[in-house]
């Protein structure tokens, strides 16, 4: 359906829906409708508000329909460059997420031991006063740096970015950096002098060949990517999928390469070898826009397809053929950078190899290749200079820090995550802040605010995280749901969902930079409050008044919008979106370089890495193999779920209530395991999770197992998700630290199948 149709049908729909229909009595009753059968859109006038979806971090623009003060339906905002009027399954489940009866409803303070989960309700005054006193004590005793702030989901800005920097802690971190994107962003900074950004800048319109390495379009259901993929594929574009598993998107692939896990860099080097030796690269582009080609050519001379075939378990012919398929379609041919790239601890180098292939294909800044995204112009609400410059990174990160000096907090301490010592650069590594909570090395982290981060279902090495939670002087959990880690908090603050609150404006780096707004469709349910309100109330209590100088959130938003000549009212009148012009292609730079590397070129050879003692051109490094009787533990997504966030949402839980573990059918048979059998998984360190049902399938290699992430949660307050399936995080007791980006490689864990408790 085209956008125009959608818009028209949407408008007609509202008009018709708002009108009372005399004929309604003639209609058959809607099957099993929750009410007397009158469809929701005939129960009263439809009131629509604009918003931004928060069911995953992709942030599609939405139109929320409410009737008689209740949210009834969420649809994509046709004017929004991400949703274009459509939503994924999770986005459709937003109403159900909001109405989850398990939601946190009132502020609470701990009444038993940490981790026990006994709380008593308190007033907002009591909760906030208590936290403020504790924060000031910590600051007095050990400096503001002794507070760590972790943030995820869409209100993270208020705590991980704004409050943290105003307060003066460099220890603010997001799982979306070191547990997800850091290697991708650092590799891009090093190679191209720019980050990839939240919205991967694949120029889908005109793309003729797409290569995916471990990207799971269709299981990872980011709406726009599915839309663009379907259009590109539907127009006959070639698709190459490299994956140990015949994923949903692999079913659409023209070439599926079932690679041995952990060997992707060997494949990438062999592709570079074919491009160079067969002279299939874009010679003009390479001459004009890259440096270090000769050294790269020499480096890959012995990385032949035959060499890679023996490592990757692919055939020499497959490797050569796919390189040619890519090259025939250059520069409208790209390897997508992907998300969640923290796999084996050498991930920055793998991503660099990916970008080198794209560079030889001449893809950057070319139509149908990779465009350059641009952030929209928008001025922040004025505030005094921050006490410390943050580097929390995350999905929406701008350019990462590049100077050699780490910023110091007010009492002279830099980040406690080991940056510059155990790893080179990049956003604050969340998992590296856990040890300092226990060991006090380099200094003790004493307090922790966890905003929307599912700590015990995302950070590897759970026993260590629990130990840290027990050791802290203050733990504050801000969340919508009683997630597993909430039981460890001293104070729990219940947050309003994205349908009940205003938020910051979304400035999205994009081909067409744009600004989106979120306004409440309904008043906050229960005693919940928005993140901005909580951050401000805390700020006012700890002397940060100057950073929260606005009276109302509407005033704050209007002031920011004034910088682009708009206002909340005007945005509402204009479909909730402001679109600006981008500079997507090389020709938009009038000969100047868009690549902000030291050489102003794409650095095929990285002097920066050489200077820091790393391989200036990626090398293939092997990763340990599974011991006998063990499989490599791979994990990913189910299309109706996001992280460990939506498993309890009634409408989504109903479709996929528990996970299953994929085991190669032959491997299962030889272990005497049946399809559907309940088993437990036990990892190399004896950590166990389950029971979980076996999916014996041809769709995966026999040296790895796969499970959708986010299940096996141990959170009794989540009545639907508690104890369902197995937890990959529980089985990730180990991780490999990426020495360049600080990413935590999690695919180095192995599991065996256990059939008895």
């Amino acid at each position, binding site marked *: *359906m085209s956008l125009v149709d*959608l818009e028209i049908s949407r408008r*007609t*729909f509202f008009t*018709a*829906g708002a009108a009372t*229909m005399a004929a309604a009595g003639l*209609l*058959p*009753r*809607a*099957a*099993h*409708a*929750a009410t007397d059968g009158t*469809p929701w*859109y*005939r129960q009263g006038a439809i009131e629509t508000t604009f918003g931004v979806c928060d069911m995953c971090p992709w942030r599609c623009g939405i139109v929320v329909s409410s009737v008689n003060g209740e949210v009834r*339906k*969420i649809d994509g905002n046709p004017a929004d460059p991400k949703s274009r009027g*459509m*939503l*994924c*399954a*999770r*986005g*459709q*489940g937003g109403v*159900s997420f909001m109405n989850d009866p398990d939601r946190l409803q009132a502020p609470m303070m701990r009444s038993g031991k940490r981790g026990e989960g006994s709380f008593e309700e308190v007033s907002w005054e009591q909760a906030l006063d208590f936290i403020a006193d504790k924060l000031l004590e910590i600051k007095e005793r050990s400096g503001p740096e002794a507070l760590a702030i972790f943030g995820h989901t869409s209100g993270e800005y208020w705590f991980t970015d704004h409050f943290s920097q105003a307060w003066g802690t460099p220890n603010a971190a997001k799982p979306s950096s070191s547990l997800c994107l850091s290697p991708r962003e650092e590799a891009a900074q090093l190679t191209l002098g720019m980050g990839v950004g939240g919205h991967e800048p694949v120029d889908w319109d005109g793309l003729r060949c797409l290569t995916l390495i471990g990207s799971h379009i269709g299981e990872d*259901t980011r*709406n726009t990517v*599915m*839309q663009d*993929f*379907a*259009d590109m*594929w*539907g*127009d006959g574009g070639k698709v190459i999928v490299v994956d140990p598993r*015949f994923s*949903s*998107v*692999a*079913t*659409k692939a*023209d070439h*599926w390469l*079932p690679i041995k896990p952990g060997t992707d860099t060997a494949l990438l080097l062999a592709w570079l070898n074919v491009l160079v030796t067969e002279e299939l690269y874009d010679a003009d582009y390479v001459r004009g826009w890259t440096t270090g080609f000769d050294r790269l050519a020499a480096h890959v001379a012995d990385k032949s397809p035959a060499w890679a075939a023996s490592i990757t378990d692919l055939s020499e012919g497959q490797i050569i053929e796919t390189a040619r398929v890519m090259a025939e379609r250059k520069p409208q041919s790209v390897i997508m950078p992907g998300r969640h790239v923290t796999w084996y601890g050498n991930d920055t180098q793998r991503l660099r190899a990916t970008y080198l292939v794209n560079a030889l294909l001449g893809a950057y800044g070319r139509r149908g290749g990779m465009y350059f995204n641009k952030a929209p112009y928008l001025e922040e609400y004025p505030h005094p200079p921050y006490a410390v410059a943050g580097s929390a990174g995350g999905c929406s990160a701008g350019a990462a820090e590049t100077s050699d000096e780490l910023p110091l907090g007010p009492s002279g301490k830099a980040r406690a995550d080991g940056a510059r010592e155990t790893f080179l650069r990049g956003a604050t590594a969340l998992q590296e802040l856990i040890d300092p909570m226990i060991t006090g090395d380099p200094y003790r982290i004493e307090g922790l605010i966890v905003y929307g981060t599912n700590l015990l279902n995302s950070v590897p090495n759970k026993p260590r995280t629990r130990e840290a939670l027990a050791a802290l002087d203050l733990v504050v959990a801000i969340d919508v749901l009683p997630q597993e880690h909430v039981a460890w908090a001293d104070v729990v603050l219940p947050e309003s969902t994205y349908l009940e609150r205003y938020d910051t404006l979304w400035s999205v780096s994009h081909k067409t930079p744009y600004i989106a707004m979120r306004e409440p469709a309904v008043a906050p349910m229960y005693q919940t409050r928005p993140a901005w309100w909580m951050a401000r109330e805390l700020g006012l209590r700890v002397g940060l008044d100057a950073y929260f100088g606005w009276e109302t959130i509407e005033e704050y938003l209007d002031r920011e919008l004034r910088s682009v000549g708009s206002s909340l009212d005007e945005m509402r009148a204009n479909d909730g979106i402001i679109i600006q012009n981008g500079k997507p292609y090389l020709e938009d730079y009038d000969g100047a370089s868009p690549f902000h590397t030291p050489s102003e070129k794409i650095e095929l050879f990285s002097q920066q890495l050489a200077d820091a003692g790393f391989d200036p051109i990626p090398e293939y490094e092997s990763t340990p193999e599974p011991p006998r009787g063990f499989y490599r533990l791979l994990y990913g997504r189910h*299309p*109706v779920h996001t992280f460990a966030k939506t498993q309890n949402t*009634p*409408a*989504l839980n*109903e*479709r996929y209530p528990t996970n299953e573990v994929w085991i*190669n*059918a032959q491997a299962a048979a030889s272990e005497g395991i049946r399809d559907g059998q309940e088993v437990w998984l036990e990892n190399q360190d004896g950590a166990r999770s389950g029971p979980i049902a076996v999916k014996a*399938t*041809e*769709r995966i290699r026999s040296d790895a197992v796969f499970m959708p992430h986010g299940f096996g949660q141990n959170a009794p307050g989540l009545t639907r998700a508690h104890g369902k399936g197995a937890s990959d995080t529980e089985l990730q007791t180990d991780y490999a630290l990426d020495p360049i980006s600080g990413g935590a490689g999690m695919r180095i864990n192995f599991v065996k199948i256990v059939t008895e408790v």
Partner: protein
Amino acid sequence: MAQAFVLDLGRCIGCEACALACKTGNELPTGVSYIELIEQVRGSFPDLEGGFDNHRCLHCQDAACVAVCPTGALYKEDGLTRLNTPACSGCEYCVTSCPYDVPRMVDGASTKCDGCKATTDAGGGPWCVSTCPSKALEYGERSEMLRTARTRAEALRAHYPNAQVYGETQAGGLGVILVLPDDPEVLGLPRDPDPPTVANVWQGVVQPVSIGLIGATAVAAGVAGVIARRNHMAELRDIEEAEQLVGDGDSSEEA
């Protein structure tokens, strides 16, 4: 004017957005779903192919379920198969007669997609169609949808040489015209669904009787209940045998 859907199973990537949009737009209660995504992968590692079956009501023109429905709860309108749930007696005849295994009994009543009757009557589009990120679904006038399906099958041949349209004629022509990546048999669909012989007879003989009964008595629901409790499978089999005896077994009605 006959309406129809196009469902492009080449494009469908099994993301389940349609199922959730149907659920939330129609506010279906727990346990009711009109769409199931069923993995359909064939072959053995690493020689695999396939995708997803997007299993839902195909809105047959010659709908077996409508033919056997003794109460008129299932009926045709605008080329689509509607369901007036309050009229359903719970006899389950539709469940056993559907050649595509679609209707499901929930709380004693038949449930299945009704083509978003209420929503389209209100001027909206079917929920599943408007949300599908892969644009695997379309809705509109049937002749237009047939053209679209042919164009889509043509485009799909870039990836699947055997791509084809299904539902032009099957079961009298489907109201959900499928674009298939391969032959119907490969995807578990009957190339020609069994002509609804039994259903025709049921409609021709039994249904008027039951409707007559309902009309003739004040306790219609009770009578429908009696009908429902009969062993209808045995009954249908008897009728079919009788049909074959008189040598009129094949009454396929392809338009």
